[in-house]
């Protein structure tokens, strides 16, 4: 690679990296926790989830309960399991019966907790810390669509930054892989850490950049496709990509037959083995033309892309339409499913998610070391004093905002354990102001070494307090959670225990850098 190309790639890598750094750090830090979104939800509520990745217990039982409270006749009834939380989501469509009352003609949505038999009527009150961190991970707290598009562009520029980054480092990948000079000049240390961890994390980061860009920027991709290929007919695109439910006409004739979903599900499990039902959608409940669509997938141990469904006509129990999960998966289904599986890392048990969590935090470190390289590389005698002060301030702000996330997040885990009710408003009103105050405090200290040391120490101590807060408030101490098999609760406690110890260990034993090296040199 010639000098010209090398320097251009280097410069574009620097500029794109420094522009997205803070947003990207937030995305990676909260994204790492989002691997355990559902575990955090259950930890916060003290729930243990008996059946994972599938709708729990008897469908007929749920329908029976629902019919006591709602007149289901003529409605579309959908029960869905999406997250591994105790609640499932219930969607009741508007009744198509012309004689139905106004109330029956309004669609209803709520979360149903089948164990406690309670309902949560809206999204905001079903909100929890896992959801908050998951949403922050694509900046969704900034109003739609700005936050998501911003996060999408950050993901895309991140893709650009890692491609230019790996190209800049290309000739030295092998020779520098084992180079680590912690006692050399500080610039060399940051560079070694940045490049070594950057190379190790590259495949991981590449997958997350591409899938993340797709999730958030699919609009700008699909818009021209719809306009050009489909002449503006978006519905046809959804049809081709198999996103649409079929439509069954309402016949307005009552069906004298009880629905027996559990029997159908048992039938499907018999034929398809390890099949997990995640959604049941009933069309025209109680009508002659009532149909039940039962969809799900095979457990990942059995098959990675085993998506399937079956639609029964209730009147005669015949199979109207089906996709068999145990046969060859179509390319379409494979890609659609893998984009999510690769991003969520949820197809290989806890091991994969723990590794992904660690690689996510490693990426955070790569981002921070990048900021530090940017700073120390510009701390030269030939650069005007004013300019150097400005650079120092930029890095100071960046580091304060990013590093404050660790203690703030740990503190939030403790707060939710002591708060009487935790909902969307509560999380917004605690997390953001605390983050602001912590950031401002560290910004005003104007000392990056101080910020680094004390965010690690406070984050470490608060992290260790998380399992204790959980034990005090719920009695689910780690050993009790272990004995009772409360995996989710134990996992979050352990996560903070290890994070806390690691943070303190780094802060106390590993931060031997002289503070003078982090402040601008005089002259």
């Amino acid at each position: 690679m010639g000098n010209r190309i090398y320097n251009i790639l280097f410069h574009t890598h620097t500029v794109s990296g420094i522009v997205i750094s803070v947003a990207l750090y937030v995305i990676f830090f909260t994204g790492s926790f989002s691997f355990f979104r559902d575990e955090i939800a259950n930890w916060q509520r003290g729930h243990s989830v008996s059946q994972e990745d599938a709708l729990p217990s008897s469908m007929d039982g749920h329908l029976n309960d629902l019919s006591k409270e709602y007149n289901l006749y003529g409605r579309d009834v959908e029960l869905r399991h999406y997250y591994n939380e105790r609640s499932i989501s219930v969607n009741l469509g508007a009744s198509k019966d012309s004689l139905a009352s106004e109330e029956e003609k309004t669609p209803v949505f709520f979360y149903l907790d089948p164990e406690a038999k309670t309902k949560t009527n809206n999204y905001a009150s079903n909100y929890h810390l896992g959801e908050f961190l998951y949403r922050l991970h694509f900046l969704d707290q900034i109003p739609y669509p700005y936050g998501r598009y911003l996060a999408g562009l950050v993901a895309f520029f991140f893709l650009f930054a890692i491609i230019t980054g790996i190209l800049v480092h290309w000739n030295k990948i092998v020779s520098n892989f084992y180079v680590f000079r912690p006692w050399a000049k500080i610039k060399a240390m940051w560079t070694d850490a940045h490049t070594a961890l950057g190379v190790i994390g590259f495949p991981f980061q590449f997958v997350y950049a591409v899938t993340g860009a797709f999730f958030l920027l699919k609009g700008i991709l699909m818009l021209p496709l719809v306009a050009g290929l489909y002449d503006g007919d978006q519905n046809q695109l959804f049809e081709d990509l198999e996103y649409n439910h079929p439509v069954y006409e309402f016949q307005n004739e009552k069906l004298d037959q009880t629905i027996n979903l559990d029997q159908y599900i048992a039938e499907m499990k018999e034929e398809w083995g390890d099949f997990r039902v995640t959604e049941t959608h009933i069309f025209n409940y109680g009508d002659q033309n009532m149909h039940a669509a039962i969809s799900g997938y095979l457990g990942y141990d059995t098959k990675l892309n085993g998506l399937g469904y079956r639609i029964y006509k209730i009147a005669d129990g015949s199979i109207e339409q089906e996709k068999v999960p145990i046969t060859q998966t179509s390319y379409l289904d494979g890609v659609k499913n893998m984009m999510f599986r690769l991003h969520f890392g949820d197809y290989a048990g806890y091991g994969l998610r723990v590794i992904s969590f660690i690689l996510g935090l490693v990426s955070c470190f790569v981002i921070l070391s990048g900021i530090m390289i940017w700073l120390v590389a510009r701390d030269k005698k030939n650069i005007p004093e004013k300019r150097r002060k400005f650079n120092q301030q930029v890095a100071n702000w960046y580091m304060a905002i990013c590093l404050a996330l660790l203690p703030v997040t740990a503190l939030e885990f403790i707060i939710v354990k002591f708060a009487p009710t935790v909902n969307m408003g509560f999380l917004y009103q605690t997390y953001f102001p605390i983050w602001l105050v912590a950031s401002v405090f560290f910004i005003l200290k104007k000392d990056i070494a101080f910020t680094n040391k004390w965010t690690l120490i406070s984050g470490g101590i608060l992290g260790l307090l998380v399992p204790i807060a959980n034990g005090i408030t719920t009695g689910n101490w780690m050993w009790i959670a272990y004995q009772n098999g409360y995996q989710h609760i134990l996992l979050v406690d352990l996560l903070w225990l290890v994070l806390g110890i690691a943070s303190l260990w780094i802060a106390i034993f590993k931060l031997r850098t002289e503070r003078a090296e982090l402040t601008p040199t005089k002259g």
Partner: protein
Amino acid sequence: MPANKKYLTPSFSQRFAKITAAILGGLMVAIMFHMALASWFNHVAVIITSTFSAFILWAVLMVLAFLGKNGWKVWGMYLLASLVLFVIFYFGNQTNPLV
């Protein structure tokens, strides 16, 4: 050591041309490429592939745009490529209309 300035683009208009060609031109070519393919081949397979390949291609074109000597020439090349791909798409869409 920050990148050596002597290799970087100094003028504003050149920088502007390269940045816009990288982001907008690159996107245009990436999308037209997939539309041209989709109009002639299995469109469902091409569209679902584009969910990842379009973003990778866009990013690669973005890198290439900065390597050119003249930003306006890069724009010219990306516009020409888009035009050629559009013609391919146009005839493909006429031959195998989807709607």
